[in-house]
């Protein structure tokens, strides 16, 4: 009896924290959402106005009619998805080698790669630009995709996860005579589904919000991504920019820009399920 009461209390407490998490993370976004539906003069009102007095679609129609928003969204989605797929593929191959194979220079090579995490990415911008200018690849989606494929985070995370997969699962497959590629494809990848989807999410999002590289590498509107496109009509801090702030369109655009990213997130987070044992036995 007592135990059940305690369990109930714990459950209640858990739900309380769950709701707390939802509220604290959503509350600032709620303001963004509400602001997107307000006319400009109402947005920074005081005291805070949670329901728009004169709700309007004008911010959305402004963004969609004056700018090539659909094109930017398309570019963002394509470059982020393609980069994500390439990264998962090549990073999981490399991580498999680093985590489970013995070869000359394993540790040295791995250390060199990890050390690059510690060099701020901004330092690569100008050299990368000159490189892509030489290859005549500026203003292309390729220029937006390729630099991401050299990322380190994915290899780092996957190697660490691959290391923790129990060796007996792999041994069973080796006894069956499976080659390295078979082991990688039909044992490692299914086993590491949660971590692979974590890397996929992180890679996608870092491309999705990336600003500096897309800014310098792309000039034509046809290959612009969302963050750079939105920067066209939104300067951030007022007073420094020398342009009057225009919050409404920026909020509407930011709101629309989160939708594809959330969809990708929802799609990938489904793989955060416990299914390890089930798929492991198949080998």
């Amino acid at each position, binding site marked *: 009896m007592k135990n059940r009461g305690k369990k109930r209390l714990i459950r209640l407490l858990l739900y309380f924290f769950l709701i707390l998490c939802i509220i604290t993370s959503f509350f600032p976004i709620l*303001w963004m959402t509400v602001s997107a539906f307000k006319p400009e003069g109402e947005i920074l009102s005081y005291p*805070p106005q949670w329901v728009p007095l004169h709700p309007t679609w004008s911010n959305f129609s402004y963004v969609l009619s004056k700018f090539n928003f659909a094109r930017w969204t398309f570019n963002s989605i394509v470059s982020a998805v393609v980069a994500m797929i390439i990264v998962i593929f090549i990073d999981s191959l490399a991580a498999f*080698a680093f985590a489970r194979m013995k070869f000359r220079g*394993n540790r040295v090579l791995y250390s060199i790669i990890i050390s690059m995490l510690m060099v701020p990415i901004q330092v690569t911008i100008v050299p990368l630009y000159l490189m892509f200018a030489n290859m005549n690849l500026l203003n292309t989606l390729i220029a937006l995709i390729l630099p991401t494929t050299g990322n380190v985070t994915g290899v780092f995370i996957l190697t660490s996860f691959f290391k923790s997969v129990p060796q007996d699962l792999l041994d069973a497959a080796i006894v069956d005579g499976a080659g390295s590629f078979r082991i990688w494809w039909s044992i490692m990848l299914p086993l590491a589904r949660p971590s692979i989807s974590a890397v996929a999410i992180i890679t996608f999002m870092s491309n999705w919000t990336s600003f500096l590289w897309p800014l310098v590498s792309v000039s034509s509107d046809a290959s612009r991504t969302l963050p750079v496109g939105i920067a066209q009509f939104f300067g951030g801090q007022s007073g420094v920019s020398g342009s009057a702030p225009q919050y409404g369109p920026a909020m509407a655009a930011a709101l629309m820009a*989160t939708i594809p990213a959330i969809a990708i997130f929802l799609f990938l987070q489904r793989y955060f399920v416990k299914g390890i044992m089930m798929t492991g036995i198949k080998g």
Partner: protein
Amino acid sequence: MKGKKKSYKWVPYLFLIPYLIAFFAFRFGPSIAGFFVSLTRWNIVGQAKFVGFGNFVELFKDPNFIKSLVNTLYFMLLTVPSLVIGGLLIAMLVDQPLKGRTVARTFVFMPYVIMSTVVGVIWLWIFDAHFGILNYYLGFLGIKPIAWLSSINWAMPAVAIATVWWTIGFNMILFLAGLQDIPNELKEAARIDGASSWQVFWNVTLPLLTPTTIVVIMLTLINTFQVFAQVYVMTGGGPSMATLTVVQYMYVQSFQYYRLGYGSAIAYVIFMFLVIFILIEKKFLKRFGDES
């Protein structure tokens, strides 16, 4: 078996080659080029002038740089513990079989996908001393308005709060993936042996989570040391350089003062510091791992 393995010595390299090509071309190469830039004086458009380690010498005499370094360490002190521990707690929460956990995962992660400039406006609206909503609601509790972003004492904590809100989803995702990798059977076995929830967490979950924890701590250290966007959009580094961070200083020198050589030198000092951090972290965690 053994003979087979011997004849395929090149197999690991086959696995590595696609990534290594991308890595050396797009990450390592440009970074090394950046190192050579750090040995020069260069405004991007003109001719680079070789100055040896002159930029590094200047850097350690530059009071702004020292200040940015101290500020960054303070920022890490404020954010790293809550990002790591908070990330773990939230991940454990949304790992439970609760209704609405997908919604919670999504919402916690959502701030991470919003553009930095928009995040800046959102937090300006929250923290503003006059029309900010935080002060408005604190007023009901009888708390006097605080000039969050314009006081040298409050600006950094304000940036830290925004950072936790913005990036904790990243750590949550990693921890969640780590938790998923722990077989349920192990936990259940412990429970059947009569272990309490706390004991299960301390003796089973946490030790098995150690590889993930190492990854998360390392990435959090690196990311917070390289904090840039939050500061750039919320305070710009002010007031009186109270929120100036190292990467922001590097950005200002490289892209606002057009001193790319000096900026690159800052990048390589950041690199040195991070290497030291990570070595310390590794030693510390190794000992921690041995004990448990």
